[in-house]
């Protein structure tokens, strides 16, 4: 917030960069120019221009990006393009599904010095460790909670706002089956990863019909529609909410409803088919570095870092500290791997609900 802090940090980063450069040069004096391809959501940290430039400058490794707009699309791309990707962002809940087809390489933590700083609970999340091997480096975590336009009276404190008659035609739902069925499960007091009573979830989601104006599937679409005053209340990703407030000054409040919210942990993985695994791990090491994290938060807005000490480096009044309050954690249900049967049921129910909304 104040200039001296910025400058101190800047100098610190300079030192860090220089150190990184020194170690790389020491280890491999004649590094050939390498290029790694990262598969991620668009605008989600790894493709920040300054970060890619900084990484390329210190390691000589070029970084190019490809994007997906849904997690299944990510899996499709990894499945059908062997060798095309070196670093893939993978929701921890999806790691076992991807690894069931042996698409991922086990992580060699000895090549990621920064991994020592990751919160042990996240680093060794049961979703990431399979048969004693870890297939993803926990990177950031966040939630899907409720965003509401400010200046429109009392802010909602419940997911029930999505079917509140007061919000008729002013709601945008996420076009994401796991998120929406998860919200239905929270509203009906069920486990989001293994709901048993699908009928009550169906009824809960159907009750939202009069309020639903549109379905959003990307952060960009969310921001555009919110700016155009198309809706007031919507489920939203915590990282997106912080970016919308910080970067676009959108008048929104981000709320963890009393029923709870859906927590997620994103990890960075290396496909088994990658031919540049060392370079990929170097990039992952850079991505979990608190130095990168603090800059990411300041320049763009980011979810909560899995690197335990990184959050403490933020100013006390930082939006991220406000958004990711420690009190929220007990209210979060973290997404876990879903069985094929449950996933199919979730997809079918959401598809049917969308058709119901369209009638």
């Amino acid at each position, binding site marked *: 917030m104040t200039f001296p802090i910025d400058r101190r940090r800047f100098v610190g980063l300079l030192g860090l960069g220089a150190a990184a450069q020194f170690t790389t040069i020491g280890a491999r004096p004649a590094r050939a120019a390498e290029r790694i391809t990262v598969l991620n959501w668009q605008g989600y940290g790894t493709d920040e221009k300054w970060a890619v430039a900084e990484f390329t400058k210190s390691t000589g490794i070029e970084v190019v990006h490809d994007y997906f707009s849904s997690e*299944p699309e990510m899996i*499709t791309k990894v499945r059908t393009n062997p060798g095309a990707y070196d670093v893939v962002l993978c929701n921890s809940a999806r790691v076992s599904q991807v690894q069931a*087809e042996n*698409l991922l390489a086990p992580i060699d933590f000895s090549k990621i010095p920064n991994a020592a700083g990751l919160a042990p609970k996240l680093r060794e999340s049961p979703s990431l460790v399979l048969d004693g091997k870890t297939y993803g480096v926990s990177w950031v975590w966040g939630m899907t909670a409720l965003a509401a336009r400010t200046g429109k009276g009392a802010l909602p404190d419940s997911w029930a706002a999505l079917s509140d008659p007061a919000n008729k035609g002013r709601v945008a739902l996420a076009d994401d089956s796991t998120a929406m069925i998860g919200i239905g499960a929270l509203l009906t007091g069920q486990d989001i990863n293994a709901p048993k009573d699908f009928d009550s979830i169906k009824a809960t989601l159907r009750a939202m019909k009069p309020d639903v*104006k549109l*379905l959003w599937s990307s952060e960009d679409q969310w921001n555009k529609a919110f700016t*155009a005053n198309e809706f007031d209340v919507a489920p939203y990703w915590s990282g997106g909410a912080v970016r919308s407030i910080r970067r676009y000054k959108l008048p929104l409040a981000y709320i963890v409803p009393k029923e709870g919210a859906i927590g997620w942990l994103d990890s960075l993985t290396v496909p088994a088919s990658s031919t540049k695994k060392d370079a990929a791990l170097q990039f992952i090491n850079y991505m979990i570095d608190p130095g990168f994290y603090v800059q990411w938060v300041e320049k763009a807005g980011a979810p909560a870092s899995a690197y335990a000490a990184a959050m403490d480096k933020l100013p006390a009044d930082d939006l991220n500290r406000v958004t990711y309050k420690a009190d929220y954690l007990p209210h979060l249900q973290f997404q876990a791997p879903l069985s094929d049967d449950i996933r199919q049921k979730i997809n079918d129910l959401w598809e049917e609900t969308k*058709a119901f909304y*369209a009638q």
Partner: protein
Amino acid sequence: MTAATPAGASAKAPPRALPGWVATVALLLPTYAWLTLAVFLPLCAMLLFSVLTKAPFGNVHPQLTTANYMVFVRQPYLLDVAWTSLKLGFLTTALCALIGLPAAMALKLGASGRLRSVLFLLIILPFWTNGLVRIFSWTMVLREDGFLDMAVHAIIPSAPSAGILFSQSAIVIGLVHGYLPYMILTCFISLLAIDDSLIEAARSLGARWPVIFLRVILPLVVPGLVSGAILTFVPVIGSFMEPRILGGRVGVTMGTVIEDQFTAAFNWPRGAALSFTMLAVVLAIFATFSGVLRQSAARADASS
């Protein structure tokens, strides 16, 4: 010497050098090789996927099943979705014909030379921009406080909001805009083939313009209308971009359901089965229509 011999031989008997079918095959080979590679093989792969339990990527071992084709029975809401898509197809095609045929006639009758080239350019112009860009421009026009809304309020300040984004009308507007050029071009080509002397003959026999249109022009322009309708109807019932972006909540069509099976649910087999079911429905519709058209053509021939 060796090079001169065949040349001399072919000079002696040029017409018999190659059988006609060899030339035909040689000319068609690139097209069919390309179609086999780019259309037929992927289509076969999709047909295979549609009878598997899982998409055969990675280390999965799918089994054969017909369950994917039973999805319309098990999830009857898909019938409503399919009906929505067909209605969208019929409405868009009808509107394209209603707007496209007069435009084509204006091009043929009213314009010539430079004016015609300019008008032609204006019709083809939308093809030069990306489809997604065109659809997003429509969102700016159709939304509340959009250009349309502003224009209406500039004329009648007390008018209610004219924003129609996220409605069936918005989807139809986007689709008609996208596919109208096909209809105009196919109708125009049919109209060009009409001999002007036919129209002159009708006029010299005392026919008024409505009669000329109904009895002379319309029957001759039917082939253009039919190919325009096919070029419009088929992509429209499979469209997913326009319904998704312009339709908001109401934008659920077979196109978006099939897209979701591929991109969101990763159920390629079901997506493929849905695609082939829709293909069968479209072929059935065309078979019915072509039967009707052939009968009416035969009747017209018999009566003349």
